[in-house]
């Protein structure tokens, strides 16, 4: 049966049998780097295309349908255009920070791809504090956004960046608490452990109501964290034109744009790993035959299926909800989500201690 695990194992054993261990390790590094960059680009292109098609479907339009098969090469053409465009630096901008900002945002997005298990035993870096690593690194992206807003020498950018800073910092709390509630159940910060603990059922089913509550809170919080509507205040185009990336053009803009979509992919895959069992197939108790059929579907298909379902959910939000105001946004976090998620964590801890989950 096809599996990504077989491919990686074959490459690993071939490299180690051909070269000495140091060179083999270096070549593995190079392969991983190429893979991450490739994944970054492909994800960006696919998700942008998906967003345009989803929005077109919701807005009774056709969406892109000229370049390539059913418009599938449209984002490729757009990226090509952006690469060829002149990257303007506005007068009075802090050139160093202005140029650095998109790379900070992009590198952060790339770094988080490292500990994500894409399929059974297919993971770049199975770090034992995976959840902590993801939460810690993802909060760095706000630095890139603040940098972009501050160095652009534009008031719209500054307002957008400040909004974004306030938003990401506050919503990280409830996202973190929602993640912690699953960590409490699993007793491990390692992402592969968390996936393995869902062998006989996903946490969203096993964890009763508290797990569902933390799933909902997690989805709301990560929608806000990735600056997506209805929390897209950082780039609210009817208020701030384009927010923190107003002054960016060409490839620098494309990096922000791609990083946004890769971030969506990352938060959705974290959500899928924690609540929907990552690459684990869907199993129902003692239904042997059913479970066996489910096992035949490759683990990577399970993983990407779940992730893209969550991505679709987040895109659905974007094209149906109006935008919140900045004070309402912060009220929602500090007055509702944070107390609820704290109480929920307490409940979850009690549940974990008493062993009230399946």
């Amino acid at each position: 049966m096809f599996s990504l695990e077989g491919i990686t194992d074959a490459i690993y054993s071939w490299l180690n049998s051909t070269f000495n261990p140091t060179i083999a390790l270096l070549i593995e590094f190079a392969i991983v780097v190429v893979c991450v960059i490739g994944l970054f680009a492909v994800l960006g292109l696919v998700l942008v295309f998906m967003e345009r098609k989803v929005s077109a479907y919701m807005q009774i339009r056709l969406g892109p349908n000229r370049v390539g098969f059913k418009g599938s090469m449209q984002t490729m053409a757009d990226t090509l255009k952006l690469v060829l465009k002149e990257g303007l630096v506005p007068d009075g901008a802090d050139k160093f920070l202005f140029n650095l900002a998109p790379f900070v945002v992009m590198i952060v997005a790339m770094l988080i791809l490292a500990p994500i298990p894409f399929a059974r035993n297919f993971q770049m870096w199975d770090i034992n504090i995976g959840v902590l690593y993801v939460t810690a690194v993802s909060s760095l992206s706000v630095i890139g956004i603040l940098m972009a807003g501050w160095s652009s020498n534009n008031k719209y950018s500054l307002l957008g960046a400040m909004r974004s800073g306030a938003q990401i910092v506050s919503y990280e709390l409830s996202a973190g608490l929602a993640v912690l509630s699953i960590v409490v159940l699993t007793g491990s910060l390692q992402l592969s452990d968390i996936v393995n603990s869902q062998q006989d059922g996903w946490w969203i089913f096993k964890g009763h109501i508290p797990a569902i509550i933390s799933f909902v809170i997690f989805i709301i919080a990560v929608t806000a964290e990735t600056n997506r509507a209805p929390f897209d205040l950082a780039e609210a185009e009817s208020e701030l034109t384009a927010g923190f990336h107003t002054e960016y053009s060409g490839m620098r803009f494309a990096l922000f744009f791609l990083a946004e979509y890769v971030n969506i992919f990352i938060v959705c895959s974290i959500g899928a790993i924690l609540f929907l069992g990552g690459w684990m197939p869907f199993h129902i108790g003692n239904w042997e035959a059913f479970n066996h059929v489910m096992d035949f579907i490759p683990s990577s298909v399970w993983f990407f299926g779940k992730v893209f379902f969550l991505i679709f959910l987040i895109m659905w939000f974007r094209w149906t909800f109006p935008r919140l105001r900045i004070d309402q946004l912060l009220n929602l976090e500090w007055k509702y989500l944070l107390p609820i998620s704290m109480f929920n964590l307490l409940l979850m801890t009690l549940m974990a201690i008493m062993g009230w989950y399946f």
Partner: protein
Amino acid sequence: MFEEVGTTTEGDLVINVGPQHPATHGVLHLVLTLNGETIKNVEPHLGYIHRSIEKMSESLTYRQFIYVTSRMDYLSSHINNHACALTVEKGLQIEVPARAQVIRVLMDELTRLASHQLWWGAMAMDVGALTPFFHAFREREAINEIMEETCGARLTMNYICPGGVMIDLHPNFQRKVKEFITLFKSKIDEYDEMVTGNIIFQNRMKGIGLLSKEDAISYGVSGPAARGSGVSCDIRKLYPYEIYGSLNFEEILETGGDCFARYLVRFKEMRQSLSIIEQLIDNIPEGDFQAKTKAVLKLPKGEFYSRVETARGELGVYLISEGGTTPYRVKYRSPGFSNLSALNHMSKGYKLGDLVAIMGTLDLVIPDIDR
């Protein structure tokens, strides 16, 4: 009486919103003084698309000057033409045939409906929901097609002329309008579900941009914006023209004075317009569509004033004639200009995001402000 013009102090942020900005729906330029996100002062700068329509009218004949007004408030171009035609008819004391009157009112209401549909979509877009815009345009397209068949144009109709209308209705008109009525009746409920009931939308609209009844009157706010503050100002009811006096419709009044009240007024007006069209569509009298007029119109010496209710409020046409073939002076009292004057008062102390919502509920069309 005059509020002090906001002076900038240390720590204030001055932002130019516009002339090219997605929130202003045109080339309006607002100079905002912000304290963080809170608005301290809003100063509209006008003149970016001033085309001297009033001055141009002085060198155009009485048949010609009507059509320039299509370019003022392009979303209710029909009603603008209507206002001018009424003024000329008042001067010449032309009796408009019954058929022409009904056609005019039908077209007025269709235009009002199309304008409110567009406003509804743009309003939702202002507060961040992009999808309703497309849904609104889908239904607006049906009206545009009806207009296109009869008038030959989709935006600047130029259909009304002194004494009646230019040409008779297209044979398809009645059938198409009836089709539209059945279509839109189901869609308007969909609109209601999609936006009005949304909790985020209500939070964004309720208690925002308060305008008291007294302030609405003193700023000269008219139309749905004033009716949201409880000011009864529907010209169709107060000073009925054409056959409005004999029609059965309500003047929508809300007392909230906030953005949500103004939203509701416009929304309910769509249903009223629909009911007016329903009343008239089967009762279009036979007869002439145009009164017999002279080839060259000459108004007697004097001053004439007429007013109509456009989709945005009261449009007044003040015309001075010296007895020649062209007006001596034309002055338009456009609703957008007066409504804009209340913007500073309404948006002080609210957040930047609220300004966009307030502007959305005023339903500004910039060429109407800058004539």
